[in-house]
């Protein structure tokens, strides 16, 4: 019986099994952003130690960065301190640092893959739950806490129980207007936000293989929202083509050798997973969420579940959630007026997402009364938007493009959705107050977000063409 791909990568990185405990896992890449790293650096200083392998650590600010006037000092003093602290810490500990106006800057989970820093077969961690994104490159990537960030700084290792393995197959072809984001929201709606807790997920099947690299990054990004430690996709030719020539990717002989190894990175035909689930691509339509966790999603043509379909222990949470959103059980969401639209985040801030958004708004106008924030995931994405002329299409339709960062996904900068306002957002979480205190979030794909932006109401994008 062959090992699963997850076993192959994980087991290769085990330094030792701790007696009656976890495994000591070697980490190839540590990413640090400004929010979850300062206390780890503080701990390192308190212990009086240096980073064990500083060359494997890459730092960049993304959560606090403003999405306008980045050449001016950050107005929010506390945000500025946090961003400056990362720069100082990176310098003190001798780490790679891509500061705010550095052309390599952007959201850490967008930058890693696009710069060739996240590669197949690697173990990758960051003090950020969306580190699962890098799994799209065929890596074992997962989010950790700040104490664990300090562990990796100190030793390039982490102590971790090996998760169980799960394979999720999406068979068949996705329909028109259905994106990787919809696949992920569909999976969460079936599995709930805890359905994959304790597991590492391998995504497979025709619909997954057909996804572009950007789509795969979106799918893997959302693994954590099903509770999974991480999610990944076996690397194929498409992965190698994406990586080739990128700045930090191996070159020349090293490249050939790397590809040779990467080609071995797949589960065997007879690999056995602790759990295996199969879904049909044709069952998935554009999705929207109606509640305050990402598992509370439905097809855009469907209605919010009736109260009697919810189990007894969950009723209080369900009613609290709908009460916060101002929705009723049984209600449809199409036609609901929208105040804000947010395109961006590590979930949907890549070039393909901007292409998709532009394809809907082209030749149309932004609806009056809708405020739209379009935030590229990195400067590289921003440059590509210009190179492809997408900026012109968006401007003609009444949209402006902002500067890169996490932005309204979690509203640590100034991009906060005001209390009570409804946002259709391509980000990853619709938790209470996530996009600003009192903000109400409907998660959706860039196509659904674009349809809302031009009609002013929640609209099925398939009806616009």
């Amino acid at each position, binding site marked *: 019986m062959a090992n699963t791909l997850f076993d192959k990568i994980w087991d290769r990185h085990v*330094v*030792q099994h701790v*007696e*009656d*405990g*976890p495994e*000591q896992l*070697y980490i190839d890449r540590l990413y640090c952003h400004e*929010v*979850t790293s*300062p*206390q780890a650096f*503080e*701990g390192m200083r308190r*212990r009086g130690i240096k980073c064990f392998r500083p060359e494997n650590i890459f730092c960049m600010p993304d959560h*606090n960065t403003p999405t306008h006037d980045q050449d001016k000092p950050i107005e929010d003093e506390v*945000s500025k*301190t*946090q961003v400056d*602290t990362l720069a100082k810490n990176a310098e003190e500990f001798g780490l790679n640092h891509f500061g705010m106006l550095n052309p390599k800057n952007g959201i850490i989970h967008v930058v890693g893959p696009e710069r060739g820093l996240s590669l197949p077969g690697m173990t990758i961690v960051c*003090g*950020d*739950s969306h580190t699962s994104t890098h799994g799209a490159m065929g890596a074992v990537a997962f*989010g*950790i*806490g*700040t*104490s*664990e960030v300090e*562990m990796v700084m*100190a*030793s390039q*290792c*982490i*102590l*971790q*129980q090996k*998760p169980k393995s799960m394979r999720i197959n999406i068979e068949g072809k996705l329909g028109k207007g259905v994106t990787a984001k919809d696949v992920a929201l569909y999976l969460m709606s079936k599995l*709930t*936000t*805890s359905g994959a*807790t*304790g597991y590492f997920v391998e995504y497979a099947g025709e619909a997954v293989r057909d996804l572009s690299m950007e789509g795969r990054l979106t799918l893997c990004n959302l693994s*954590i929202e099903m*509770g999974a*430690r991480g999610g990944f996709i076996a690397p194929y030719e498409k992965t190698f083509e994406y990586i080739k020539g990128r700045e930090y990717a191996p070159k020349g002989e090293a490249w050939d050798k790397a590809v040779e190894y990467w080609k071995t990175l797949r589960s065997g035909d007879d690999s056995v997973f602790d759990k295996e689930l199969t879904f049909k691509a044709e069952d998935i339509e554009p999705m929207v969420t109606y509640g305050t*966790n990402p598992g509370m999603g439905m097809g855009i043509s469907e209605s919010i579940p009736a109260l009697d379909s919810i189990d007894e*222990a*969950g009723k209080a*949470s369900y009613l609290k959630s709908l009460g916060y959103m101002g929705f009723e059980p049984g209600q449809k969401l199409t036609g609901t007026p929208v105040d804000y639209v947010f395109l961006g985040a590590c979930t949907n801030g890549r070039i393909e997402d901007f292409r998709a958004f532009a394809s809907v708004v082209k030749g149309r106008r932004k609806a009056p009364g809708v405020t739209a924030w379009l935030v590229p995931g990195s400067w590289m994405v921003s440059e590509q938007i210009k190179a492809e002329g997408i900026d012109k299409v968006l401007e003609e339709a009444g949209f402006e493009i902002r500067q890169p960062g996490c932005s309204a996904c*979690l*509203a*640590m900068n100034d991009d906060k959705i005001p209390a009570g306002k409804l946002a259709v957002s391509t980000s990853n*979480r619709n*938790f*209470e*107050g*996530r996009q600003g*205190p*009192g903000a109400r979030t409907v998660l959706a794909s860039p196509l659904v977000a674009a349809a809302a932006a031009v009609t002013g109401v929640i609209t099925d994008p398939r009806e616009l063409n």
Partner: protein
Amino acid sequence: MKQKFDIITSTCVPLPLENVDTDQIIPARFLKATTREESFFGENLFRDWRYNADGSLNKDFVLNNPKYSGEILVAGKNFGSGSSREHAAWAIAGYGFRVVISSFFADIHKNNELNNFVLPVVVTEDFLASLFDSIENDPATVVEVDLPNQTVTNKATGESERFEINGYKKYCLMNALDDIDFLLENKAKTEAWEDARR
């Protein structure tokens, strides 16, 4: 905070909601601190449930109800889902909780609690439902969490369950040791592993 963990006997604060995410435990706007000030995070634990939009106390929220207090937080299933922010564990510790009891924890948050000497205790759905009932009937209900014997006991009903924790982590908690101490001691093994890979 590093502290030795043994047996905790305390009244409980009940939070019978499911899927409590770390954005609720500590909202993102309180993550801008650059030091580990547990008291600051503790003051803002469940901030947006604890306070109204105008900054006044939300009297309906359990932390503001004088009937309930103690070192044990009892929460509905899938506690700590979402963001990996360790600030959530700092807030729980900073407020004064040393144990969180639930029927299910999100993975990252569970590790974060353990790394901050807060013990996540996983109990069955039945034990949890019964414990919520006991606390509702009598807020003075006491629970005993015995780490050496890995048992949790509802003193009101006498119900007791064994909970799981690996031997290594149990040793760390009982002796106030953390994983970084262990990893630093094992550097030679890490270097040997690196050499073997080359």
